[in-house]
């Protein structure tokens, strides 16, 4: 799966723009997902007030920004927004991004653990014809 958490200084994409990939507004729907992400990206509650985004690099070499969302009444982070770092004015390849995000899910699920298994994710992906499952 080869997802690498990187810092802003490690970003290789030059002169990039950030392109929306997807938003998760309710990380707390199953709290283990919030805890896994907070752990992996080293988040502390102070990040809720102007903290930096997280970044990861997929095996493809494409890099992504993870913005952590905060919502009153919900533990931080209440959600995330994932954005692709796309060089200059290059076009976006949605399938290439989807391949990377599938690998990100494969990286995330074992970190959540418990009943959330890689096998369950892959089986779900196969049933629903995700090409990378």
């Amino acid at each position, binding site marked *: 799966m080869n997802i690498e958490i990187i810092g802003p200084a490690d970003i290789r994409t030059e002169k990039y723009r950030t392109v929306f990939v997807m938003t998760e507004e309710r*990380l*707390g*729907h199953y709290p283990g*997902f*919030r805890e896994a992400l907070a752990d992996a990206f080293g988040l502390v509650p102070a990040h809720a007030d102007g903290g930096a985004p997280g970044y990861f690099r997929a095996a493809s070499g494409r890099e992504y920004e993870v913005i952590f969302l905060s919502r009153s009444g919900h533990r931080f982070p209440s959600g995330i927004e994932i954005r692709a770092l796309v060089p200059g004015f290059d076009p976006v390849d949605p399938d290439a991004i*989807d391949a990377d995000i599938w690998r990100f899910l494969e990286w995330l699920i074992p970190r959540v653990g418990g009943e959330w298994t890689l096998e369950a994710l892959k089986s779900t992906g196969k*049933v*629903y014809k995700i090409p990378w499952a």
Partner: protein
Amino acid sequence: MNPDSSLVSPLPPEIRKRFPFANRFMRVNGHRMHYVDEGEGDPVLLLHGNPTWSFLYRKFIPPLVAAGFRVIAPDHVGFGLSDRPAREHDYSLEDHIANLAEFIRRLGLQHVTVVCQDWGGPTGLACAMLDPAAFKAIVVMNTWAWPEPSGFHSSVFPWRMMHAPVVGPYLFQRRNILVERGLYLSVVHRERFLEEALPAYRFVMQDYDSRLLTRVFPRLIPLRSDDRSAATMRWLEQSLRGSKVPALIVWGKEEIVFPAECAQRFKTLLPHAKGPLWVTGSHFLQEDSPEEICGHILDFLRGPRGGSLP
């Protein structure tokens, strides 16, 4: 003429030919809601669930109209040709019930027969329990009305994994799995479905934002007693238990989302109900056996437990 009606069809010809009904719109609780309203007589309200729209009932409308009923089929806010609120927090079971209750009130419907499947159940049955005097009968199909989840809904594979945090937006919104694969897996007559119906379900789910409710609805199914929607589902079950409204239970023989025990639970809840009557059908039984189900509905409405024809 209804001032909310649209003279210009928003549908392409290949879908329009299978859904040749006037597109009507009403603003409900700030959202534009699309609906079909055909025929005259006592109203039959046809309610869909996730991820479908009134197109699901296209084969119910002509025979019910021909039998002397006014047939009304709305698209839930967030689906079909209705508005799509943009944020997950804009959707709750209570919002959906309130939207439907206001829709019924604005149309001034009385002597209503509500026919419901999937999320059409909790929303439509709740409206019937809120204003029982307005309802003549209920027809339940492949749905539920209690706080406990079915085995399908409590399992991680595939259901809870599908809409888990981060996984959900990817599978439901980026990959559109419920439309592209889930519907196909949940009908018996698959080749017919691919030819006749899938283009219409795709048409209204063309981009990431339009698919939001497909992943939000699964999260509104309570798994525990303190989950969102649980209190409303408890109220609904208690209300139905005391209800005397004539009822018909129709269930798909091949249904796995709400298996046979759910039909039996409705029978326990509504012991006076006719049925369960079993038809060929997986979860979207309206796609599989529309003529047979319409026959059952008309027999029921003509019979002593459903009242007489108008």
